[in-house]
């Protein structure tokens, strides 16, 4: 199963960047995210998998598809990149992957001795809001304030200025 999922992830991520139709790229991206959710399900980390499904597959990809549909040139094909850019990009990718693989192969991995942690919803919730050791209440609050600011900013930008409109 693991090989199937990772195969899907590899092939679809390659297709995402090589396809020349923008909507198809979004669909291949969706496949990649779904297969990642499958990997989480294999790890029995169901909460993470469901978050992956709702946020990435159900939220972000839908947003991407929406914004693509709202643009004018949906059926527009990407231009083929020039040769120099292509060579530069591929070489950067190859160097990066060689470095990562080399580190992975040389690093001595030790099998974790810790037992499987029970991933319970209540525990995740308590951990998120605890102020004690290993509590995440500060990052949680910071992120919520950041989100709130982002939402207010989005509303301000999207709101039509009535005076300006009447002049036009």
């Amino acid at each position, binding site marked *: 199963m693991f090989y199937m999922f990772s195969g899907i992830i590899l092939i679809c991520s390659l297709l995402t960047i090589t396809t020349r139709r923008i909507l198809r790229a979004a669909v291949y991206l969706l496949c990649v995210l779904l297969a990642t959710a499958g990997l989480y399900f294999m790890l029995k980390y*169901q*909460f993470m998998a469901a978050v992956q499904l709702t946020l990435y597959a159900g939220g972000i990809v*839908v947003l991407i*598809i929406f914004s693509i*549909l709202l643009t004018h040139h949906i059926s527009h094909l990407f231009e083929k990149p020039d040769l120099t850019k292509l060579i530069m990009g591929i070489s950067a990718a190859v160097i990066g992957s060689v470095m990562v693989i080399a580190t992975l192969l040389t690093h001595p991995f030790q099998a974790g001795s810790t037992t499987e942690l029970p991933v319970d919803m209540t525990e995740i919730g308590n951990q998120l809001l605890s102020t004690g050791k290993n509590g995440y209440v500060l990052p949680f609050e910071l992120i919520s304030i950041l989100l709130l600011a982002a939402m207010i900013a989005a509303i301000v930008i999207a709101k039509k200025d009535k005076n300006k409109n009447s002049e036009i």
Partner: protein
Amino acid sequence: MSSNIYDFSSLTGSIHSWLSGLMSSGWVIFSEMVLVGLVFLLMYALIGLFLVYLERKVCAIMQNRVGPNRVGKWGLLQTIADLIKLLLKELIPIRKSDALLFNLAPFIVIICSFLAMAALPYAKGLQAIDFNIGVFYVMAVSSLSVVGILLAGWSSNSKYSLIGAMRSGAQIVSYELSVGLSLLAIVVFTGSMQLSTIIESQANGWWIFKGHIPAFISFIIFLIASTAEINRGPFDLAEAESELTAGFHTEYSGIKFAFFFLAEYMNMFIVAALGATVFLGGWMPFHVGNWEGFNHIMDYIPSVVWFFSKTFFLILIIMWFKWTFPRLRIDQLLTLEWKYLLPISLLNIVVIAFIVLMGWHF
């Protein structure tokens, strides 16, 4: 307490041990997967066909007509005849459409409803997977079907389809919030997202009765929002026949159209089953607090019967909506969600959290 309800896990356990005696463990898992798959496929087809028949009959009764009555007794075989007709129909390829996405879209929609069905508890001990995040999982996979609808609308290369898909996308994305918040209300009451735990917690009364008025409010919000989420009338703008011919599936023909059609009815079943499970106790018989004798009598009705009768009760309500109310405009639809349902359900959650903290619920 409810010890004399038949537990299906004994049946599935005996099938498992019988298979284990026949073959090695790898093959047992494989054959069980095939068996479960076959059962789900059969159930999917049967419920889907029956729902289409039911819809036509209910519509006919509401409009003072007879409805299908020629094929089979009371027209029961009508939908099977329709299915055969759809299977034999020609699949019309659309010129200048994106063939890959065009063919992929119906499958995305139908796979999503299959995924959601897997986690539903049908009777005591009869549940394919019991996730500890059951409610959240069902929400997550059912939200994926909007991708299929958007792709179907775009790849058909038709204006009707595109407008239908955009409408339905905006509608599903916004009403999902209300569905999630109204389900969250009961999750707050139960303290768990696991569907089996939610059902067990209703052994002394269903949440709609135990949770005072807030639970009832969230039940009503759930009914409205989920009707919108499955694109049914009065929220069926995505396929408003009078303006968009058939919305996002205008260009589909034959069995691909049947996939969309079937998935729509199965989504209705899933939503009704989820509502029945969370608010009306799923397979849990009608119990009242400490009335032991009464509860004991109610236990004699099998749990499958309870589950399906509650589900079909909700389905009938949803159908009643469709044939009673006129279709909303898109701006009215979005106003209803963002200006009324969402604030009400947010406030409702706060009230429920307060009730749970004070321990006022039963």
